[in-house]
C-alpha cells in the first residue's frame, strides 16, 4: 500500500521542512528550559559534592549556609572535631558578591576556606591549572567560568588577591562561579566596613558612656577591637570517619552542641526543594506554556494542510478509501512534523542554545526521551481536530452540482 502521508510530505517537503524547523526551534527552547532546570539541580549537587562534607553544622534553626544566612563562632569546630565519628572539620564562609578585575566585575560566590591541605572540607577538590592556596592571605583560586586567568589581580572589597589556581564546575546553586580565598580574609570581607563607617562606629562607641568609663581604663579600646573583628563563620563542614553513620553523628552534634546539622540528603533537599524551587516552578510553567504553544502550532498547521486537501479527501472517500486510512494520513503527517521538529529542536538545543546560554544547561538523554514522547503525544492530539474535519468531509463534495 502506498504511504499517502509520505508521498504528500515528499511532494510538499519544503513546506514541511520549514514548518518543522520553526517548530523545532520552539522544541529546542523547551528542551533547553528542561536543561536549565537540570543544570540548576546539578549545580546544587556539584556545590555539595565539591564541598567534600558529610555534614553541615550551621546556626541553630536556620537553613544555612546556602539557603539562609548562618553565623556560628569560628572556634566551634574545635569541639566538634573531638566528637565520636568525626574525621575532619573545617570552617567555611560563603558570600555572593561582585569581584572586580580591572574595569570589569564578575558576580561570584566568594568562599573562605580554612588553611590546610588538599582534601580539607571546603577546598576545591581538583584544579585545572595552577596550585592551591598556600599563603594565609591574598591568594585566590577561581572557577574558569569567572573568566579570570592565572596571575590575574582581583579585588574583593578593599583587598587585592592574586589568582594562583583555576578550577572547573565549581559554582553556586545559582550558577555563579566560585572564588576561593583564605578564611581570615573572607571573614574580614564579610564584615569589613569602609573607613567612614569605621570612624562613625568608633565615634558612636566613644560617645556611649557605657563603653567609655573613665574609671575603667582600656574598656573603650577593648570594645572597639571587638567591633572590628569578626569571630563568625557561616558553617562548619564535617567529614565523618568511615564506618560511622552520618545521621548518628549529626544527632550527636545537635544534642551536645545545640546547633543545627544537616546531612548530605537533607542539604540536597534544601537546595533543590527550597532554593531552586521557585525557579523550578517558573521553568515548569514555561514548559507548560511552550507545550501548549507547540500543540497550537502543530494543530493549526495540520488543520490548514488538511483544509487544503478537502477535495482530495472527498475524492479518496468517494473511491472507497477507509476513514482510518485518511485519519492515518493526517496523523502520520502530524507525527512527521513532530519528528522533524524534535530532530531540529534537539540539534539546536545541543549545538546552538546550551553552549551559549549563560547558565549551565544539562541535557539529559532521559529528558530527550520524555521530550520525544511528549512531542509525539502532542502531535497525535493536535491532529485530532484536523482528523475530525477530514472525517466529516462528504464524499459527495467530489461530485459536482
Amino acid at each position: 500500500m502506498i504511504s499517502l502521508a509520505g508521498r504528500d510530505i515528499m511532494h510538499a517537503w519544503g513546506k514541511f521542512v520549514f514548518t518543522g524547523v520553526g517548530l523545532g526551534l520552539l522544541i529546542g527552547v523547551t528542551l533547553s528550559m528542561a536543561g536549565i532546570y537540570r543544570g540548576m539541580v546539578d549545580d546544587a549537587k556539584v556545590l555539595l559534592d565539591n564541598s567534600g562534607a558529610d555534614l553541615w553544622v550551621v546556626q541553630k534553626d536556620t537553613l544555612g549556609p546556602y539557603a539562609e544566612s548562618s553565623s556560628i563562632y569560628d572556634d566551634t569546630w574545635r569541639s566538634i572535631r573531638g566528637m565520636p565519628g568525626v574525621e575532619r572539620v573545617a570552617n567555611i564562609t560563603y558570600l555572593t558578591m561582585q569581584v572586580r578585575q580591572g574595569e570589569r566585575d564578575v558576580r561570584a560566590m566568594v568562599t573562605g576556606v580554612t588553611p590546610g591541605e588538599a582534601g580539607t572540607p571546603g577546598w576545591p577538590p581538583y584544579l585545572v591549572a595552577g596550585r592551591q592556596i598556600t599563603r594565609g592571605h591574598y591568594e585566590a583560586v577561581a572557577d574558569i567560568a569567572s573568566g579570570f586567568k592565572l596571575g590575574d589581580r582581583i579585588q574583593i572589597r578593599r583587598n587585592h588577591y592574586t589568582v594562583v589556581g583555576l578550577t572547573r564546575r565549581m559554582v553556586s546553586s545559582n550558577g555563579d562561579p566560585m572564588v576561593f580565598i583564605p578564611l581570615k580574609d573572607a571573614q574580614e570581607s564579610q564584615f569589613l566596613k569602609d573607613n567612614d563607617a569605621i570612624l562613625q562606629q568608633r565615634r558612636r562607641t566613644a560617645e556611649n558612656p557605657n563603653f567609655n568609663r573613665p574609671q575603667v581604663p582600656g574598656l573603650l579600646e577593648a570594645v572597639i577591637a571587638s567591633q572590628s573583628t569578626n569571630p563568625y563563620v557561616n558553617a562548619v563542614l564535617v567529614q565523618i570517619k568511615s564506618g560511622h553513620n552520618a545521621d548518628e553523628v549529626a544527632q550527636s552534634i545537635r544534642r551536645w552542641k545545640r546547633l543545627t546539622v544537616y546531612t548530605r540528603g537533607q542539604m540536597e533537599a534544601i537546595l533543590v526543594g527550597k532554593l531552586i524551587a521557585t525557579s523550578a516552578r517558573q521553568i515548569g510553567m514555561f514548559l507548560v506554556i511552550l507545550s501548549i504553544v507547540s500543540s497550537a502550532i502543530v494543530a493549526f498547521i495540520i488543520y490548514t494542510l488538511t483544509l487544503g486537501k478537502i477535495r482530495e479527501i472527498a475524492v479518496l472517500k468517494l473511491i472507497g478509501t477507509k476513514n482510518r486510512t485518511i485519519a492515518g494520513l493526517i496523523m502520520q503527517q502530524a507525527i512527521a512534523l513532530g519528528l522533524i521538529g524534535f530532530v531540529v529542536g534537539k540539534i539546536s538545543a545541543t549545538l546552538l542554545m546550551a553552549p551559549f546560554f549563560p547558565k549551565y544547561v544539562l541535557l539529559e538523554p532521559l529528558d530527550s526521551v520524555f521530550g520525544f514522547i511528549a512531542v509525539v503525544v502532542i502531535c497525535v492530539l493536535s491532529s485530532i481536530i484536523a482528523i475530525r474535519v477530514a472525517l466529516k468531509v462528504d464524499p459527495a463534495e467530489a461530485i459536482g452540482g
Partner: protein
Amino acid sequence: MAGKGIHIEGLKKRYGSGDTAVDALKNVNMQVAPGEVVGLIGPSGSGKSTLLKALGAVIEPTAGRMILGGEVIYDNGWMVKDLRALRRDKIGFVFQAPYLIPFLNVTDNVALLPMLAGIPNAEARSRAVELFKALDVEHRAKAMPSQLSGGEQQRVAIARGLVNHPPVILADEPTAPLDSVRALAVIRILNDMARKLETAIIVVTHDEKIIPTFKRIYHIRDGVTYEEAGEGREFE
C-alpha cells in the same frame, strides 16, 4: 466483475420533511446495458447531481429500486451497508475536473484503487500500466499530475475510473474543460472501454459537441427522467 449494467426503477429522493420538503427525484427510471454509454442531460436544478449522488451511493434514495452490476443496492428503504466497498468495487467515477491526487504520480493515482481493494501493489500497478497503454498515456506513467496537459489528466482520471473493472462508470461532465477534439477523444475512449470491459457508463453532460455521439439519452427535468434516442453519430 463487469456486466449486467444499471437498472433503476421509480427512484425518488426527498430532502427535508413537512412544508419544507423538496422532491429532488420524483420518478427516475433508467436502463443501461453492459458496454453501453448513455447521456444524461438536464438543466440546472433538474436533479442531475442528486441522481448522480444516488447512483454513486453517496446519498440514500427515499424510494424505488436500484441495481448496479447485477446487485441490488437499494430497494425501497433497504440499502447495502458497506457503501464504501460498493463504491470501490462496483462504481468508477470520472469527474468534470480530473481531481487527481496531486502528491501521487500518475501510476499511483490509478493503482491506489486496486490497492485499497487489497490487490497486491505490483498487480495494481500492472493494471494501471495496461490502461495507460489503451489510453495512450503510457509515456506519462511516472509524471506528477501537475506535469500533464488537461487531456492527459482526464485520460488518467478515466483510467482511475476503470482500473477496478467496475460494472458501472459515472462520468460527471468529463469533457467540460476540453476542446472539441479532446472531448470527442474522451468519449471515444469511454465507448471503447465500455465495449471492452462490459461496463455501463452514464455521462452527465451539457456539452453540445458530444451529445450527438450518444445512441440513447436520458433527459431529466424536475426529478423525472425521459428517454430519447440519440443520433449515435460515428466518431470521425
